[in-house]
């Protein structure tokens, strides 16, 4: 609290200097980019609301960042101006979903734990992606935060710890919107904190909480995955041709386990841009010795001919039986259904949610549109024809990250409580997780 009061005057001076610099830069930019905002009468209202909201969040962040030196502010300003341009080119249909600004460690508030800072950066750069991986990483980081936490005078751990964790969670959400599984896990954590006995000492309580987090990871993710693999092995026979899309950690474990058991099967991996996650799965399976075919999504009709089963992973499962997963999953499920090929989803129960969703618009995530511009398949980026898209007033890029697969395309869901039809998801929620609701 004290550091802020002391440097209020310095803060004001710095902010004034910042404003002068921003004004000068804007004048320079306005000459160059006069065409971009002017020719948008239709999306003008949408653009102004999104720009308004980003500037609102940024002004709440800047007063706390007295640590920012001049170089850091110009960096953040550049990224800020770029995001403003990208935001002004929002696709109307998705203007309710903001494109995340990404993690900016320079502008982070002081109380953010360094583990969370690292995590936010990893999330926004997609170094950790995949629902299970993100959840485990987030819970491990929270363990560190809890271990370093000290209850202040005059309050108890069970009351203050949640308020201490809230800004950390907000920072993570700003870096990249939280996954449904992570949301459930954090809700479970908060519930566990609230049941801590007031009499317990700090150290004991912290140790108990860390143990509870470990138990959650073990029960809901690690062991659940193993049970799912056991069930899934019943569904893979000799001579099967299995199709999978992008990279699901559970499906990967299932295929590796099936191979170790000696079942003879072939795998077709369908991949899509811009994330190209299927390559990692391909590496893993080929190194294990499985016979693999790799193709892009446009070839799914061609590849679907010989397929006997389709295994897909999930990001979340809605209460109306719809699957929320990586964008393109719905396409694969639909093509399989056209050819009457069974579609099997492997999903842990911690990903089930009460929400209902009918299409891919209501809740989704937009990634950075610049990812579409790069057309190479290797790590070295190769800009394609669209590298000047920001300068073309009528051209927009849309980079969706998730989509919704309607329940009619799904044959069965394998969870750790058994193999259920996708319409039984609300039943599972009711039976097994009444306490967390």
């Amino acid at each position, binding site marked *: 609290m004290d550091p802020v009061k002391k440097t209020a005057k310095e803060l004001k001076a710095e902010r004034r200097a910042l404003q002068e610099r921003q004004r000068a830069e804007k004048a320079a930019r306005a000459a160059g980019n006069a065409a971009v905002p002017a020719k948008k009468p239709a999306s003008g209202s949408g653009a102004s609301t999104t720009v308004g909201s980003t500037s609102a969040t940024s002004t709440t962040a800047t007063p706390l960042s007295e640590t920012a030196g001049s170089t850091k502010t110009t960096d953040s300003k550049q990224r800020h101006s770029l995001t403003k341009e990208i935001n002004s080119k929002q*696709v109307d249909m998705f203007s309710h979903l903001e494109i995340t600004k990404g993690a900016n460690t320079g502008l982070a508030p002081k109380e953010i734990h360094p583990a969370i800072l690292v995590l936010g950066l990893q999330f926004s750069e997609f170094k950790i992606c995949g629902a299970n991986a993100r959840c485990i990483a987030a819970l491990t980081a929270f363990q560190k935060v809890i271990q370093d936490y000290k209850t202040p005078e005059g309050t108890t751990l069970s009351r203050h710890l949640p308020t201490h964790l809230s800004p950390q969670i907000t920072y993570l959400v700003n870096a990249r919107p939280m996954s449904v599984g992570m949301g459930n896990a954090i809700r479970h954590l908060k519930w566990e904190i609230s049941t801590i006995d007031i009499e317990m000492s700090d150290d004991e309580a912290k140790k108990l909480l860390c143990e509870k987090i470990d138990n959650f990871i073990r029960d809901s993710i690690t062991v659940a995955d193993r049970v799912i693999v056991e069930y899934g092995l019943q569904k893979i026979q000799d001579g099967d041709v299995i199709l999978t899309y992008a990279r699901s950690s559970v499906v990967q474990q299932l295929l590796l386990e099936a191979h170790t058991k000696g079942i003879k099967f072939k795998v077709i991996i369908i991949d899509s841009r811009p994330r190209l996650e299927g390559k990692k799965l391909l590496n893993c399976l080929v190194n294990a010795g499985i016979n693999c075919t*790799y193709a892009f999504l446009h070839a799914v009709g061609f590849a679907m001919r010989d397929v006997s089963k389709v295994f897909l992973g999930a990001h979340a499962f809605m209460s109306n039986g719809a699957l929320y997963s990586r964008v393109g999953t*719905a*396409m694969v499920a639909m093509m399989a259904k056209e050819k009457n090929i069974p579609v099997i989803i492997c999903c842990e129960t911690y990903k089930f949610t009460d929400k209902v969703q009918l*299409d*891919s*618009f209501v809740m989704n995530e937009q990634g950075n549109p610049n990812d579409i511009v790069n057309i190479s398949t290797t790590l070295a980026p190769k800009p394609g024809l669209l590298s000047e898209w920001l300068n073309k007033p009528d051209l927009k890029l*849309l980079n969706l990250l998730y989509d919704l697969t309607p329940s009619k395309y799904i044959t069965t869901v394998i969870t750790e409580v058994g193999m259920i039809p996708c319409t039984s998801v609300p039943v599972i929620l009711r039976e097994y997780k009444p306490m967390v609701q």
Partner: protein
Amino acid sequence: MTGPRDLNAQIESLVNRLRRRQVVGSWCVSIETAMLLRQVVSATRWNQVETLIKVVKEDVGRRLVMAQPRELAVGNIVCRVLRLIREVYNSEDATFDDNSAEDNDKDSNTDDDEKDEEIKSKSSQKIRTFSFYGGSGTGTNTQSSMINLLGDGSPMGAKRASVDDYRKPPNLKPLIISELQEMINELENTYVNIIDQAMEHIHSNEIIMTVGKSRTVEMFLKTAAKKRKFSVLVAETFPTYLGHEMALSLSEAGIDTTVISDSAIFAVMSRVNKVIMGTHAVLANGGLISVSGAQMVATAAKHHSKPVVVCTGLYKLSPLYPYDEDSFNDLVAPDPVFSFNEGDLIDKVTLLNPYYDYVSPELVSLFITNTGGHPPSYLYRLINENYDPDDTDI
């Protein structure tokens, strides 16, 4: 005109360019083939129609088709030309018969006169039908030639045979060449006729989805954009990235364009009003051979009950049937999918990169062609009128 050696050189040149895929796009291929065949008809020496048909079909036509079997437009044009030749011959034959039988001195070169003659004519084995494309005002059914083969139904058959060799060449050649010229004009005006229909199909504030890059669709949308305001979603069709070129071109014309990745097609389909796409070829059952990814788009559109409109010129309509879906497909280099510098995985992995997709006729709602809009169920009529069944084995 040009001697036979020059003609051979021209044929060789087109064959080589087809083989090396230096002629790109069905439209260019069609026009070049049509012009070459016009040269063939005018430069070759022929006394009987059968000779001409043999030259066009076997000597020239087969070589062209073999040079690039995937380019179905070549075969289509050859079939069209053969059909034209036979029609001109048959209609000339009829007027000649009538002329000799009734001893009239009418000028048999005018279309109207021919029509009148044939309606009054006594040679009843000729069945008159209307043909819907420009060119001769009357057409003859192929059944007439079959009846002739089985033996003449009329007593004039023998007489006709004796005067055939004598009278044919001076009349037929200019007629055939003028018909061919009309066909070439029709080909050149294909785009004009298609884009004239743009205003009927696109309305304000529509969201249209398209896939790949088609010159026809591009012109179609640009024409509509002059008067209507709508937006377009372009699927980028990796790994060919044709969608990127299309989006650039459309946005330069002032159309509100958004590029989406192929994986998002199902996700956004619920907001799309209609799907408009081009195609590489149309098969006899109404199915399409289109750019890879079209099958996905059409299936997704069917699941959301959105109409799928295909803009194509009639020269892409092929009389072949897709008995096997794969017979028209090409697997091209997998480098864009998984490049060499990815390492040693390449030996252990099978890579698939099909260039074309087969879209079944149930997924297509409407064909917009230079002769108007047709449902897929009507295509068999167009094939009957434009092609002969004996020619499909080129």
